[in-house]
């Protein structure tokens, strides 16, 4: 690794890398704390979103792009995924209910 790796130009990537690793370890350890299942899921999903934001913002430079590009990407992916999930989730529960009966 060159000297410049630790200098200012590339520092953001390696700080992001370290934070991502810490979050990943925290996610792996979370199960050991015997928290309620719903809380564990919320915890994991929240940290997943933090990791995704850090990768998008720092590694993919979305933080430094024009805001409308960042909004197009984030909203395009997030909103459509949520709509898709919102349509699928109730259907899966109704399938489960009808199968159990």
């Amino acid at each position: 690794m060159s000297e410049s790796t630790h200098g200012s130009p590339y520092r953001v990537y390696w700080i992001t890398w370290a934070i991502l690793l810490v979050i990943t370890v925290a996610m792996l350890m979370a199960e050991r704390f015997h928290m309620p299942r719903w809380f564990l899921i919320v915890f994991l999903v929240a940290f997943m979103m933090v990791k995704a934001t850090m990768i998008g913002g720092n590694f993919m430079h979305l933080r430094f792009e024009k805001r409308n590009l960042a909004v197009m990407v984030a909203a395009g992916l997030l909103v459509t995924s949520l709509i898709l999930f919102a349509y699928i989730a109730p259907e899966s529960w109704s399938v489960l209910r009808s199968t159990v009966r």
Partner: protein
Amino acid sequence: MDHGAHAAVMESHWGGGVSPFAATWQKTMMWIFIVTDGLLFSGLLCGYGFLRMANTIPWPKQSAVFSIPFIALMTFILITSSATMGTAVGAARLGDRRTAVRFLWLTILGGAAFLGCQAYEWTHVIHDGARLYGPLSGSELAHLGVPRQFPAAFFILTGFHGSHVLSGLVILTITALRTGLGKTPAQGVEMAGLYWHFVDLVWVFIFTLFYLV
């Protein structure tokens, strides 16, 4: 319709200029590709969620099927390769071709290691009786009582992701060779980097939603 009215309808009042995202067309198109490819994985993950939530047979505990520390190692490798890729992009932007090429090869090494780990994991799971249509009867997975959708979701999610890693490796190898020869501009390295980070981003979702939740 007179000419004035026609012009009023047809003329664009677009105020974004020639570059509304303040990005080149290559970068804009790369982002549009990433959004559409991201939607593919979003659909796959929602499909996985449907299979899991609608299943009457309980989903197995992931640690009973997979070695979670090994999956964590794969995650570590991919995150590290993203950091080396970022450094390569940064170096290319600064005009430091030697550092850019060196970090591109480190990224390729990381990607190849990740793919090797995935091949090992697939071999292990197939050996335990996992098939695309469900666990083999009499196999270890069948004894665990995993629903037949479980191996299907595993192969589809990790298979699609792995194919992206593989294509990323091809793109990175071409980029590294061409950058070494001075034929790829900094923007070319940046485009390859965007794709590679996207592959890492998708893994964050698969790792959490399939292996941890």
